[in-house]
């Protein structure tokens, strides 16, 4: 398998590979096959390419403060199972499924409830009032996205937070272009409604122009 991809190193007797292979083909499929053959650096490249997808899926489901650590845990969970992945082209969808399971497991484990808000920016200490207001608004937007139905929430976070395009989301997660496009459109529509409602609620029921985030 590795030979067909142009890797020159032989698999070590110990059954592990830690060196850097010559990678003439850096497609995801080639990287998955190289990783399955034991090339750690190939898996490192997959890590770089898919970390934003994993981060986005987790951000849609678990507290912000926990997300970064869980990203690494997802890859550590995927690593020993990689040889069981039979279709290298489905790596993204497979990794997305592991990520969603990781998020479910997060809520199954007993943990100490943190008193503080999971706003990552709240620990800034003494901030100017306008900065605090801005931080609060940003947190409200994120909360708005995170309160959407699951399919929209995940896709919209990948688009708005992680900066992935629709075609990129489809390619990485294994969803069809149509599903991603519908999720983005309907999610955005619901988000607009939610943010609009919050404007009304914040102004005591009076109608107000949509909030501007500068």
């Amino acid at each position, binding site marked *: 398998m590795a030979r067909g991809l142009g890797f020159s190193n032989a698999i070590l007797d110990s059954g592990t590979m830690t060196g850097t292979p010559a990678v003439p083909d850096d497609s995801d499929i080639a990287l998955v096959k190289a990783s399955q053959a034991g090339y*750690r650096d190939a*898996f490192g490249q997959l890590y770089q390419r898919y970390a934003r997808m994993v981060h986005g899926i987790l951000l849609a489901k678990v507290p912000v403060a926990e997300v970064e650590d869980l990203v690494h845990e997802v890859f550590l969970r995927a690593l020993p199972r990689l040889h069981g992945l039979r279709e290298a082209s489905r790596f993204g969808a497979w990794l997305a499924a592991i990520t969603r399971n990781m998020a479910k497991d997060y809520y199954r484990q007993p943990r100490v409830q943190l008193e503080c808000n999971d706003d*990552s920016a709240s620990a800034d200490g003494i901030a100017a009032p306008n900065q605090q207001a801005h931080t609060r608004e940003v947190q409200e937007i994120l909360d708005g996205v995170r309160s959407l*139905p699951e399919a929209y929430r995940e896709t919209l976070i990948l688009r*708005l937070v992680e900066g992935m395009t629709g075609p990129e989301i489809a390619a990485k997660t294994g*969803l069809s272009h149509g599903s991603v*496009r519908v999720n983005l459109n309907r999610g*955005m529509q619901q988000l*607009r409604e939610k943010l609009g409602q919050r404007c009304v609620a914040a102004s005591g029921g009076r109608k107000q122009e949509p909030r501007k985030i500068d």
Partner: protein
Amino acid sequence: MAPDHQDRTRDDSYLWDGSGQPDPEIQRLELALERFRYSRPAPPLPAIQVPAQPLRWWSEIALNPWTPRFAATLLVVSAIGCGLWLEQSSRRPDVARHGWDVEVTSASQPSENGDAGVAKKSERLELGETLETNAATKASVAVAEIGRIEVEPMTRLRLLQSGTGRKRIALDRGTIHATIWAPPGQFVVDTPSAVAVDLGCMYTLHVDDSGSGILRTTLGWVGFHRDGRESFIPAGAACPTHVKSGPGTPYFEDASDAFRSALAQLDLPELNSASRNSALDLVLRQARERDAFTLWHLLPRVRTGERPSVYDRLAALVPPPPGVTRDGILRLDGRMLDSWWDAFDLGDIYLWRHWEQSWTGRPTSP
């Protein structure tokens, strides 16, 4: 197409891929949320363990000492589960759990000043029930939590399956506009001449009184199948279906009338040889690059002697990807056909194969 559908499909190119006219509101959200974006480099990773001699999965299962105990436990749990399920089912009929909300809109009688109004009524469509609109009524059906169907006048549909997992309706006649946001394969529509399977999309399906019909995809793509005959319809394309022969050959709706008419002729099983040759010749001559998917559908449908000319024209429009050979395509190798389809970038055929397997229990080829 209903106006509501048109609204939803208006220019979303900035949201979709960042192209087109930037949407200021989306730009503001991007700017506000980018602070949460992941930007850390990959940390050091442990070495990857490679199994020295990987076992096939059935060998692994067969050799595992826990397998007999696990199988016995599974059997007992399944038996208990089935018993409980049957008991519950007999006590509480499905209809109580799996109905869908329907809003029926009727044109009311004109008032004294001549204005015709509309009356709205909320209903519930339960499993096994039929929804029928007349010339003056339309309906909007909430498909559980996965989508919505707009039902045009003079339409009859039945709810066949709901609950968790797959949702299924039968469209006996009339027109529906479906918008589905569930994962591919969960929403299925039976018609008298073919079964439509949503693969993540928005589409319109019409069935006439004879049971034939046409499906038009607005977003995403739809699979159409019957008796092993399959059609995939991407956004912007349409596909007729016939009571006698099942799904026809799909085409992009901007193709010429002559092209579409020739395709319709080729779908007729009883067409004589001279007309058939003439229709195939016209299709091959007029096919544009984006019509490659139409020629791909023709490959298994044309006669053996006609297939090389379809292959040559298709290969000229979209070269076959590595691993796809002329010989393989001429003998209708399923993997090669699938691989060529994926080169059109119209949707991953893996999705279709996956869901098809889940219905039939065995893989099939085009």
